[in-house]
C-alpha cells in the first residue's frame, strides 16, 4: 500500500512539473532569397549569368542559451544539434523550459567549441559516423555547404565549403546572438544567397581545412544569420 502511495506521489509530482513547462521551438531555415533551399533538384541564380545547385547543407548548433536582457536565464545541457537540410526533422529544435522563465534573446554557437573537439569519441549527433568529423586531422566540421555552379571551373563544377577548426588562433566556432522578443516559436534563417554574394564562387569554391580563411568564412556566415521575418 505504501508503495502505491509512493508511486502516486511521484507520478503526480511529475505531472505537476510537466504542467509548469513550455516548449520553445527553434526552426532553422537555410534559405535562398528568403525561400527554403531545396537540395539536389532546384537551380538558383544570384544573377542572370549563374546557376547554383545545392547538394549538402549541414551545420552544428551548440550551446543554446536564453537571456533576459543581459542575464542568462536558461542554458541547455548537452547542447549539440546537427542540422541537415536533407532531413527536415533535424531543422527544428525543441527546448522544454519552465513556464516562469522569460527571455528576449537567444544565444547559440554555429559549430563545436574547442574543448568538445578534444573530448574523444562522442555519440548521438556528435558521432563521427555522422560525416561531420575530419579524419586526417581531429576536429568537427562545423558547417558543410556543397553543390555545383557554372561559376566553378572545378571537377564537375563543384563547390565544397567544409568550415571548421578548433585550434588557436583559428577556432571557427562562432557565437550568434539574436533578439527574439517573447515568443515560443523562433524562426532562424541562414541566408545562403547572402553568403555566396559575399564571396566569388569562380575564385573561392573550396575550403576543406582549418585556418585563417575558414575562420573568416565562418565569421561571414555567422554574421548573416537572422530572425526570419514573417
Amino acid at each position, binding site marked *: *500500500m505504501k*508503495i*502505491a502511495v509512493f508511486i502516486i506521489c511521484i507520478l503526480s509530482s511529475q505531472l505537476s512539473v510537466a504542467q509548469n513547462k513550455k516548449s520553445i521551438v527553434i526552426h532553422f531555415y537555410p534559405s535562398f532569397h528568403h525561400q527554403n533551399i531545396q537540395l539536389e533538384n532546384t537551380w538558383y541564380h544570384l544573377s542572370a549569368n549563374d546557376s547554383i545547385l545545392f547538394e549538402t547543407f549541414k551545420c552544428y548548433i551548440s550551446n543554446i542559451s536564453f537571456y533576459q536582457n543581459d542575464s542568462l536565464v536558461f542554458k541547455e545541457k548537452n547542447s549539440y544539434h546537427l542540422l541537415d537540410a536533407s532531413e527536415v526533422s533535424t531543422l527544428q529544435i525543441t527546448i522544454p523550459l519552465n513556464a516562469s522563465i522569460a527571455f528576449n534573446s537567444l544565444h547559440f554557437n554555429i559549430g563545436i567549441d574547442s574543448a568538445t*573537439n*578534444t*573530448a*574523444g*569519441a*562522442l*555519440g548521438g549527433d*556528435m*558521432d*563521427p*559516423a*555522422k*560525416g561531420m*568529423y575530419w*579524419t*586526417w*586531422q*581531429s*576536429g568537427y566540421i562545423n558547417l558543410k555547404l556543397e553543390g555545383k555552379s557554372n561559376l566553378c571551373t572545378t571537377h564537375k563544377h563543384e563547390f565544397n565549403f567544409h568550415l571548421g577548426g578548433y*585550434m588557436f588562433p*583559428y577556432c571557427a566556432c562562432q557565437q550568434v546572438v539574436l533578439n527574439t522578443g517573447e515568443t515560443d516559436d523562433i524562426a532562424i534563417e541562414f541566408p545562403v544567397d547572402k553568403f555566396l554574394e559575399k564571396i566569388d564562387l569562380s575564385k573561392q569554391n573550396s575550403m576543406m581545412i582549418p*585556418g*585563417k580563411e575558414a575562420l573568416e568564412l565562418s565569421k561571414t556566415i555567422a554574421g548573416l544569420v537572422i530572425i526570419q521575418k514573417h
Partner: protein
Amino acid sequence: MKKIAVICLLVAAIAFMSFRARKTSLHFNVPVGWPKPVYDFRKNPLDKDKIALGRMLFYDPVLSKDSTISCNSCHAQFSAFTHVDHSLSHGINGRIGNRNSPVLVNLAWGNSFMWDGAVNHLDVQALAPMSNPLEMDEDIAHVVYKLQVGNRYPQLFYIAFADSTITGEHILKALSQFMLTLVSADSKYDKVKRGEASFTDAEAKGYTLFQKNCSSCHTEPLFTNGEYENNGLMVDETLNDIGRMKITHHPVDSLKFKVPTLRNIQYSAPYMHDGRFKTLSQVLNNYIMGIQQSPTLNPILKKGIYITTEQKAELIAFLYTLSDTAFIHDPAFSYPKDKLLLSEGKYNP
C-alpha cells in the same frame, strides 16, 4: 499486491546488481614511477568485453574498403605494433602512404597522435588510417553499416555496450580499449629500475650516454617527451613533409615531428617519420654526422652529438634493454584466432 511489488523490486535489484557486477571496470595499472596517464578512463572505463571487442576490430580487415587491410596490417605485435621493414605504410590495392607507421605502445600516456600530432585523442585516432585513401580508404559510417548487417558484431556490441545498435562512437571506444591495454613496461631497463636485474658494463655506459645526449627528448620512463622536434633530417624531396606545420600552419613548427618512444626500438625498424633508416647504427650516424642546420632545429642538436664508435655500440646496447619480449609475445594482444578465423571482412555489399 504488496507481495508482487516487493518481488518485482527484488528481481529488479538483483538484475541491476548482477549487471553492475559483470560490468565492474578493470583497473588500469600504472607502473611504479610512471606519470599519470593522459587518457581519461572515467569517460571510457576499461571493461573486458569492450577490450575483447576492440581486439577483434583491430584484427578485422572489415575496417578497410575492400576488406583486405586491418589495423594489424601496419601494426603487428611481433614488431611492437608497427610495420617492420616497410619505410612507408601500405594500404589497400598496394597503395603506399607517406609516413612510417609508429609503434602502438603505452598509448594511455599519449597527448596527441600521428607524426604531426594531427589527432588529438586516442578515441579518434583510428579514423585517420580508416579514411586515408592511401591506407584503408573506408568511411566510419560504412563500417558501422557493414558491422550492423553482419551476423557477428551486433551481439558483441550488445555484450560490450548493452546496445546492439552499432555506432561510430562505440567502434572507436572499443578500439581505444584494446589499444590502451598495450602497455610495455617489462623490459630489462624496467627490471633494472625495479632492482630485479643489472645492466652489463656496456649497457650501463650506454645509459650514461643516453642520459647525456638523448633523454631531453626521449624522456624516461616513456622515452618520449610527447613534444614535436626537428631532429635535423635532410628533407626528402619526394615527400616534402613539413611535419607539424601542416597542422598549425606556423613556421616555428616547420620540419618538426612527434618524438617517438624508444621502447621496443630493437623490433620497430625502419626508423624516422619516413622510415629512411633501416638500422639503429644509421640513426646514430645521422645524429653524429648528418644533422642539417635549419631555423627550427632542436637547440641541443645545433651543437652536435659527438660519440666514438665504441660509445655508439654502448648506446645501442642500452637501447636494446628497452626491448620487452613479454609484450611482443603477450597472448592477450595477439590475433584472436578463436573468434576471428572466419572474418566478416569478406563481406561485400
